[in-house]
């Protein structure tokens, strides 16, 4: 447990020193929103479209962070050190999931107000418990799958080119459930319906976490 905290602290410290990923993610999310705004051509995004656009912004931006997940480990040769150290390999995986989760949440905390400013015309309230839960569960899903696939793609010749191709088709269920849940929040649907979507998200998180725990060690196996 202490080891896990140490590994997470290492990732956070590295990022906070340079702020490379986070600043790139923020600018990229802004660029995505500008593109979406241009695509809409000044038309307002109504409820159902709004949540889709929001999650597309999150998805694309999350790819940037995920691509950097193993950057220092790979480029500076720290991975060998970590693998040689008496660390359980699942600790390494978990630490990366947690740090990615934190980066994603930080990015979203900035993006959501800007997104609402741009697209909702001030009429949509996303600051509810239901949306908060949606964010947590979906970020978990994105990190759980993303870190596993980032570890796979960093070992290929194409590296960062590979991750979106592997990641986006796998993440579809999580994305759809998150969009659905957000839709219910935006359009003011029933609470029971919202909980059904959240349960689905939780279920996906658990399934993918199980698969990741069982397979991650093989990805780093030499």
């Amino acid at each position, binding site marked *: 447990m202490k080891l896990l905290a140490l590994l997470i602290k290492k990732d956070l410290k590295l990022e906070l020193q340079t702020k490379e990923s986070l600043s790139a993610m923020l600018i990229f999310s802004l660029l995505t929103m500008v593109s979406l705004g241009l695509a809409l051509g000044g038309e307002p995004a109504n409820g159902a479209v709004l949540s889709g656009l929001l999650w597309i912004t999150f998805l694309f931006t999350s790819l940037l962070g995920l691509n950097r997940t193993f950057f220092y480990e790979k480029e500076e040769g720290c991975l060998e050190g970590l693998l040689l150290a008496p660390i359980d390999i699942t600790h390494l995986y978990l630490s990366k999931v947690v740090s990615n989760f934190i980066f994603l949440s930080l990015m979203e905390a900035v993006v959501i107000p800007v997104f609402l400013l741009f697209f909702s015309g001030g009429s949509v309230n996303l600051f509810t418990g239901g949306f908060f839960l949606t964010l947590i569960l979906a970020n978990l899903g994105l990190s759980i799958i993303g870190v596993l696939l980032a570890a796979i793609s960093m070992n290929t010749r194409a590296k960062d080119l*590979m991750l979106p*191709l592997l990641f986006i088709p796998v993440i*579809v*269920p999580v994305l759809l459930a998150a969009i659905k849940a957000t839709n219910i929040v935006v359009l003011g649907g029933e609470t029971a319906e919202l909980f059904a979507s959240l349960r689905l998200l939780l279920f*996906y998180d658990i*399934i*993918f976490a199980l698969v990741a725990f069982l*397979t991650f060690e*093989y990805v780093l196996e030499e």
Partner: protein
Amino acid sequence: MKRGQKLTALRYIAISSILISLYMIFFLAPTDRYLGIVQKIFYIHFASAIIPYLAFLIVFLASAFYLVKKEIFFDRLALASAEIGLMVDTVLLVTGTIFSKPTWGVWWVWEPRLTTSLIMWLLYFGYLMLRSLSEDRLKAKNLAAVYGIVAFVSVPISFMSIRWWRSVHPILITPNKINLDPSMWLVALSTLAAFALLFAYLLNLKMEILLLEEEIAEIKEEMGDTQ
């Protein structure tokens, strides 16, 4: 029987069963009352809908076995099955769009089955790209096996998550009855059997090719050592 002979026998069985099923489709199966001749494509469409699931199930199982047992046979099986499964999935998507235009009036509908088939196609295209873009040969097999497992897990849950959209795709088999004329069913199942035989032949052929490729790579390495 030697391996090559078995493969040849399987080839002739596959080809003749495809020919028989084509005959059945065009001459034995009744013409649809509403759709007319267009409906004939349904038989190919039906068969090519089932085979990818079988192929990707094989990828999943072979990947898991490879990770546990580290036997190269399972790696070959996974790669061969993914490649042929992707090919049949392509047939499914193409026949689906052709069938969709005269029946639903549009080429494509964002509906659970269609969307899942397309996502499946993208998943296994990614799988094959991953295999061709990996640096280390042995490591590549591990990575591909992990992705082969992840991809298969995401297929049924993709299907589930897209289901909240209202489906226009007809459901052929419900717990109570089968929504198809019995004589059409016979042809559909025969076509499926023919496709399964063709799949088995292509799978064996591809595995044979992979085996030979590995042998060539080994010989090349040995020759490189002695020079």
